[in-house]
């Protein structure tokens, strides 16, 4: 019988075996699930791009320096968020508040820049249906993927804004800040892949 050959109870209730609270674990699993959603999009994009006879040269389509600037903003916001989490651990709530606000600022400006980029491309005639280079898949996947990433940034910004107010009111915990931080870093992580796979390659 299996249980007979088994070491005595190897952990007791209440002690998380993975060393993290269920909230944090749940957030991590959610991140994996959501990450696989983007994996699905990016794999499809790989499929479409392999199947496409030609693909627009991103050097000409995008202003890469501008995209790099967006990346810079997002990475910096990620850094400020990490600082906020670290500050929350040592209960430096004033710093937390400022850093979270800075992060929200980063997120909002990223969204603004993305809106500007979309506007520019739409003016150049890039739509879901067609685009100047006759590669519909390009427009399709561009708006789909960046759009979904943008939505995630928006949600993150809203979450962080509420978090900031709660910090001001002193109604939040280090764990809470950490959870919000995890999500925000995930958004940044996704952008790393989108930036490389869609804008550069």
């Amino acid at each position, binding site marked *: 019988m299996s249980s007979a050959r088994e070491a005595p109870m190897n952990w007791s209730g209440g002690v998380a075996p993975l060393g993290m609270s269920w909230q944090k674990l749940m957030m991590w699993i959610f991140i994996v699930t959501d*990450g696989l959603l983007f994996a699905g999009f990016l794999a499809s994009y790989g*499929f479409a791009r392999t199947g496409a006879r030609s693909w627009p040269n991103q050097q000409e389509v995008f202003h890469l320096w501008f995209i790099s600037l967006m990346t810079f903003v997002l990475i910096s916001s990620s850094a400020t968020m990490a600082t906020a989490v670290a500050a929350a651990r040592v209960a430096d709530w004033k710093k937390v508040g400022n850093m979270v606000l800075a992060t929200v600022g980063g997120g909002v400006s990223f969204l603004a820049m993305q809106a500007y980029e979309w506007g520019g491309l739409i003016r150049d005639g890039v739509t879901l249906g067609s685009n100047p280079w006759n590669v519909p898949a390009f427009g399709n996947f561009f708006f789909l993927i960046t759009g979904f990433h943008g939505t995630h940034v928006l949600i993150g910004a809203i979450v962080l804004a509420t978090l900031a107010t709660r910090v001001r009111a002193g109604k939040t915990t280090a764990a809470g800040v950490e959870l919000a931080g995890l999500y925000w870093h995930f958004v940044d992580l996704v952008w790393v892949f989108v930036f490389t796979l869609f804008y550069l390659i």
Partner: protein
Amino acid sequence: MESHESQSYGALWKIWGVLLALTAIMVFVDAMGLPRILLLVVLISAMLTKAFFISSQFMDLKHEKLVVGVCVAFSLLFFGAILFALIVPDGVAVLHGGR
């Protein structure tokens, strides 16, 4: 947890610098017009390095138990990769209008 408190803000901003440097390199390499295959190698390795830094340093996987990081990385990278690897051959078929 102790390890967290001992961690200085400076360390985080070092990571920030590294990430920006990597980004800059990627953009620069992309503009250099390397041979395709080499470009892919450089960009993807740089991308994964960035991902590693963000997840381990910012997302604190370095302070979690190893199994967490392994599971997350495996789930995302392996299943992402297998999805890509097994549907792209059909992309080629579509390109040539048939098998």
